[in-house]
């Protein structure tokens, strides 16, 4: 036991703690604790009333036991008694217990609140502080309801003690964070701002935090804080180090306050007033100058505090992004830190430079440090620092240095920490694609990636290289030659076999002229890898073989032998067996012409967002995507091309490669014979291929073919009563009358959806001749031939529904392009001899094809700015139709399909979301923001997407929901 220091002597507690420490095993400890708990329980339950001291001691013991990690389920009542005591020492322990344990027992809250209320009214500053600390520590909604309106008056009252003001300020801040709606704004706000002028620096420090939070909630109300903050900051940075007495920390004047003031200023753009602006610039210059002065102390605390202020100043400079001189000076300062002996400073410099790299004023200045950063990547001993170096290299990369950076990252990858390999692979792949001047370099880089870190190369990466090779004629021969060479290695990664198989299957003919890579050599090379590969890769190789049969008739017999072998035809895996059988059959019966048509070279892929980029976006990390363009980013930088592909693409849908990983990546096919619209959900395109000549089965005719059904006039009186209730949810009852109830259960993934429709017969009589079908009428009107935007297939259902029974129907949906009109469900049946006709609008809306996107606030604002064209934004202001409840709104926005981005909007009362709409032809990134105004009971909704029609449609859908 240590010499008892100050304060009281709760010997019983000290003895107990010693006992616990002397326990030799966990069991012994548990035993001792149980004994103590039993003792305390009996004391609390005993007839003899305990005196305050004993109560305090036992409550303290319980607290100790809880902090050791054991559960405590009693003692709360005693703690509440203690906090209502008049003795400070008992009160203090009572409050401590409640602060630590209250969330497990909130039924006492009214008693606790009562104690707090008395203490707040006591005018005893120590008691008031205890009560305020408790509110700040617990911060529950109940406490906010009870005290949020009272604390502002304590804070601004003239006669409140300084220490109470400090506690009140931070207490209010906590309540504003947990329950912003309960903290009323009012005439006190102006007086709070003036606390920045207070004599007492402790009061200013606490108030600065509060004001920063409030200024984010309502920037306009706290605008006056800008000039006060600048004035205060200016006085601090120009003061002699002793002026501020105890607020000087290791020769640095009020570092905490300085950081807070600099943060507060980051809530606002640069001051408009010229004098104020130049005063602020002077402050920032002074801070930068001080960094160059010799240190006043060798203690690390001195340099830490000084640099904490410096980094915050740099953050403000970057935030303003308007003073080129300051930006460049900041960059130079960080450049010095890159080589500092303190690891912490090197880490921070790398991190801070990442944000500087995205400013046009400092991008070039950042680039000059490339060698130092590369060196950091090679020599830093701490992986978290190396990670920062990778991020910075990624951020500073542009066309001028891409080759160097990619090469360095590749060479680092060979020894990189496992924890960061996958992210690095994605980054290398993105940079290689984005800055490729010639595609041979790109192909080399990706093959190198696979060679060095094959296990970390995700599907997206190898899909992408194939997409690019297929779309770029000039690189196909080179790609074939390169993969052929790479496959020569005795041990090569399975991902290389996949890429190799695909590319040789498509373009092997381009190198077949050389006898060293004759068709037979190519085939033998691929087939030598076959047995070492997993089923999906083997399936891909089989497809490559059938492509070979078309490309090279001379190897047909060899390949047929392989397909015919038992290991293929009788393979235990059904997919492989099926492919082998079908390919073999195809090669035997089809004429050369048919083969050539069926196995034709893949048409170009429609341009779309790089799937790799989408993947990296999902992985988070600061500065992870500082300077990558928006969703419409593509290989050759041309967006025109993509528009073309979209509007000329008249073909039925193909399977989604992403959903069916065993398939080869597959372009939107422009050869309509290859795939019929009915293949959705089939895992194997060639099954249908073989069915082409056979008569469609009876069942197939029941499939609703969208193209042929377009002319069917829509029935009158389509029910859409419940339609809007499904915007933010997927399940529920969509229609109900005396006879029939229709329930829905829907699930969506990317651009595909499936709805289970349940028809409930509410009568006791059978429905006869029951049928239901779906029509989708939304078409691309600009086209002569109607091209559907939605592909909808309803499975056929039984023609009878028994009384009281329920019938289920599956409807599959594929979203081809952005659409407005929802499909209609047409139902017919006979009930008691009369024909009933019902039409119900199916709740298939554009937002169902959202994939949520998490992003940092930095990314969010960058994208927001990029979508700045007036047509891309749609805004509406509307009256709330429901009570304005934060949780409900959160749930609705999530149900809408976007990611709810917490802490992105400077005003915590606002809601911000992001997501990507997946259609087959394109992906549309979407950002939204909902600003509630509780006083006016109004909302403002703003949507930004890259397409006007999408922004408008989403806005219409969502604005109906609140």
């Amino acid at each position, binding site marked *: 036991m*240590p010499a008892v220091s*100050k304060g009281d002597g709760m010997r019983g507690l000290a003895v107990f703690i010693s006992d616990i420490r002397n326990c030799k095993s966990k069991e012994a400890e548990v035993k001792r604790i149980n004994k103590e708990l039993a003792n305390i329980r009996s004391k609390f339950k005993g007839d003899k009333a305990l005196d305050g001291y004993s109560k305090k001691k036992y409550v303290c013991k319980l607290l100790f036991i809880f902090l050791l990690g054991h559960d405590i389920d009693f003692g709360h009542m005693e703690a509440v008694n203690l906090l209502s005591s008049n003795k400070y020492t008992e009160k203090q322990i009572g409050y401590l217990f409640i602060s630590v344990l209250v969330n497990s027992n909130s039924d006492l809250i009214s008693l606790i609140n009562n104690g707090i209320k008395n203490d707040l009214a006591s005018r005893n500053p*120590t008691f008031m502080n205890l009560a305020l600390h408790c509110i700040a520590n617990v911060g529950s909604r109940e406490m906010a309801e009870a005290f949020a309106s009272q604390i502002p008056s304590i804070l601004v009252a003239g006669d409140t003690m300084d220490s109470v003001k400090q*506690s009140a300020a931070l207490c209010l801040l906590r309540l504003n964070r947990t329950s912003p709606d309960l903290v009323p704004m009012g005439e006190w706000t102006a007086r709070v701002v003036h606390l920045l002028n207070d004599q007492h*620096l402790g009061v200013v420090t606490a108030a600065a935090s509060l004001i920063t939070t409030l200024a984010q909630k309502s920037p306009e109300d706290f605008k006056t804080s800008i000039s006060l903050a600048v004035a205060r900051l200016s006085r601090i940075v120009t003061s002699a180090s002793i002026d501020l007495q105890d607020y000087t920390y290791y020769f640095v004047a009020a570092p*905490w306050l300085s950081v807070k003031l600099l943060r507060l200023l980051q809530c606002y753009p640069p001051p408009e007033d010229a004098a104020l602006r130049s005063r602020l610039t002077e402050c920032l210059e002074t801070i930068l100058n001080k960094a160059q002065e010799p240190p006043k102390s060798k203690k690390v605390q001195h340099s830490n505090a000084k640099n904490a202020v410096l980094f915050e100043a740099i953050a403000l400079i970057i935030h303003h992004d308007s003073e080129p001189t300051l930006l460049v000076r900041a960059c130079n300062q960080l450049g010095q830190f890159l080589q500092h002996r303190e690891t912490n400073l090197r880490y921070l410099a790398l991190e801070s430079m990442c944000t500087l790299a995205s400013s046009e004023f400092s991008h070039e200045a950042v680039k000059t440090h490339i060698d130092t950063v590369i060196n950091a990547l090679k020599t830093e001993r701490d992986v978290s620092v190396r990670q920062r170096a990778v991020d910075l290299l990624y951020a500073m990369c542009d066309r001028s240095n891409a080759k160097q950076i990619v090469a360095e990252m590749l060479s680092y990858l060979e020894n990189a920490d496992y924890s960061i390999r996958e992210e690095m692979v994605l980054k290398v792949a993105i940079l290689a694609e984005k800055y490729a001047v010639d595609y041979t370099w790109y192909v080399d880089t990706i093959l190198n990636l696979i060679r060095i870190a094959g296990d970390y190369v995700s599907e997206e990466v190898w899909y992408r290289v194939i997409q690019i090779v297929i779309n770029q004629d000039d690189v196909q021969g080179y790609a074939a030659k390169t993969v052929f060479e790479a496959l020569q290695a005795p041990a090569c990664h399975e991902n290389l076999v996949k890429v190799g198989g695909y590319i040789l299957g498509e373009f092997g003919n381009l190198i077949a002229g050389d006898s060293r890579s004759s068709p037979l050599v190519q085939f033998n090379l691929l087939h030598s890898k076959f047995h070492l590969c997993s089923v999906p890769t083997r399936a891909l190789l089989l497809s490559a073989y059938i492509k070979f049969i078309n490309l090279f008739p001379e190897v047909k017999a060899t390949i047929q032998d392989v397909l015919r072998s038992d290991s293929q035809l009788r393979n235990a895996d059904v997919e492989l067996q099926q492919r082998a059988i079908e390919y073999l059959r195809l090669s035997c019966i089809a004429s050369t012409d048919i083969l050539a048509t069926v196995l034709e070279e893949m048409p170009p892929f429609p341009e779309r967002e790089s799937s790799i980029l989408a993947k990296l976006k999902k992985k988070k990390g*600061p500065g992870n995507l500082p300077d990558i363009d928006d969703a419409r980013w593509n290989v050759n930088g041309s967006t025109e091309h993509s528009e073309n592909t979209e509007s000329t693409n008249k073909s039925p849908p193909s399977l989604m490669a992403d959903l069916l990983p065993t398939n080869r990546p597959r372009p939107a096919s422009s050869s309509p014979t290859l795939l019929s619209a009915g293949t959705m959900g089939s895992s194997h395109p060639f099954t249908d291929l073989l069915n082409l000549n056979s008569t469609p089965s009876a069942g197939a005719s029941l499939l609703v073919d969208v193209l042929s059904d377009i002319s069917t006039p829509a029935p009158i009186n389509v029910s859409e009563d419940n339609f809007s209730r499904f915007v933010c949810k997927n399940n529920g009852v969509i229609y109900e009358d005396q006879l029939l109830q229709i329930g829905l259960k829907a699930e969506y993934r990317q651009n595909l959806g499936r709805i289970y429709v349940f028809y409930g017969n509410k009568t006791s009589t059978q429905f006869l001749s029951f049928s239901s079908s779906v029509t989708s009428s939304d078409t691309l009107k600009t086209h002569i031939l109607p091209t559907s935007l939605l592909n909808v297939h309803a499975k056929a259902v039984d023609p009878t529904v028994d009384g009281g029974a329920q019938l289920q129907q599956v409807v599959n949906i594929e979203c081809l392009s952005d659409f407005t009109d929802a499909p209609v469900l047409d139902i017919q049946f006979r009930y008691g001899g009369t024909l009933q006709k019902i039409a119900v609008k199916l709740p298939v809306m554009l937002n169902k094809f959202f994939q949520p996107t998490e992003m940092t606030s930095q990314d969010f604002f960058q994208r927001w700015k990029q979508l700045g064209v007036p047509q891309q934004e749609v805004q509406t202001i509307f009256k709330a139709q429901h009570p304005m409840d934060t949780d409900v709104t959160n749930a609705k926005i999530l149900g809408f399909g976007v990611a709810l981005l917490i802490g992105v909007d*400077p005003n915590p009362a606002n809601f911000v979301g992001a997501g990507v709409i997946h259609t087959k032809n394109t992906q549309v990134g979407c950002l939204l923001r909902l600003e509630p105004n509780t006083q006016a009971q109004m909302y403002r909704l703003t949507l930004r997407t890259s397409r006007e029609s999408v922004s408008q449609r989403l806005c219409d859908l969502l604005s109906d929901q609140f």
Partner: protein
Amino acid sequence: MSNLPVVQVTTLKMQFMLLFSRQGKLRLQKWYVPLSDKERKKISRDLVQTILARKPKMCSFLEWRDLKIVYKRYASLYFCCAVEDQDNELITLEIIHRYVELLDKYFGSVCELDIIFNFEKAYFILDEFLLGGEAQETSKKNVLKAIEQADLLQEEAEAPRSVLEEIGLT
């Protein structure tokens, strides 16, 4: 205000502070965000392991989940704060140091045992210094003055105890 202001979020709060020994025993925990007991235990366990696995001389900052961890070792104790990603790491490091100074001054050359046996004092000092995760009073003198005043109140209030109680037999 039809456009979003080009602002990052600037309210950055400390999420929690943990003190633990080299053996991984938690000595103090302060949570500034509402979390269930279960989450707290999981976070503490994972984070203690992560930090103990790091070598000396490594950077004091690390990214952990979506938070930034700032930590420093003083003798046998690790002090660790979790802040938000954009927060100021160096000033957090000095928050830790200032807290250590306060403990040191109050206990007189503080050691781990002082914090074990007087854990309630460690909490009181922390509350005077940091409230809701924000610096409330950064002057060492003022914080200690507040604590000493409270101790005075305490001593006045204490009545003599019986001998049995003094040796901890009750």
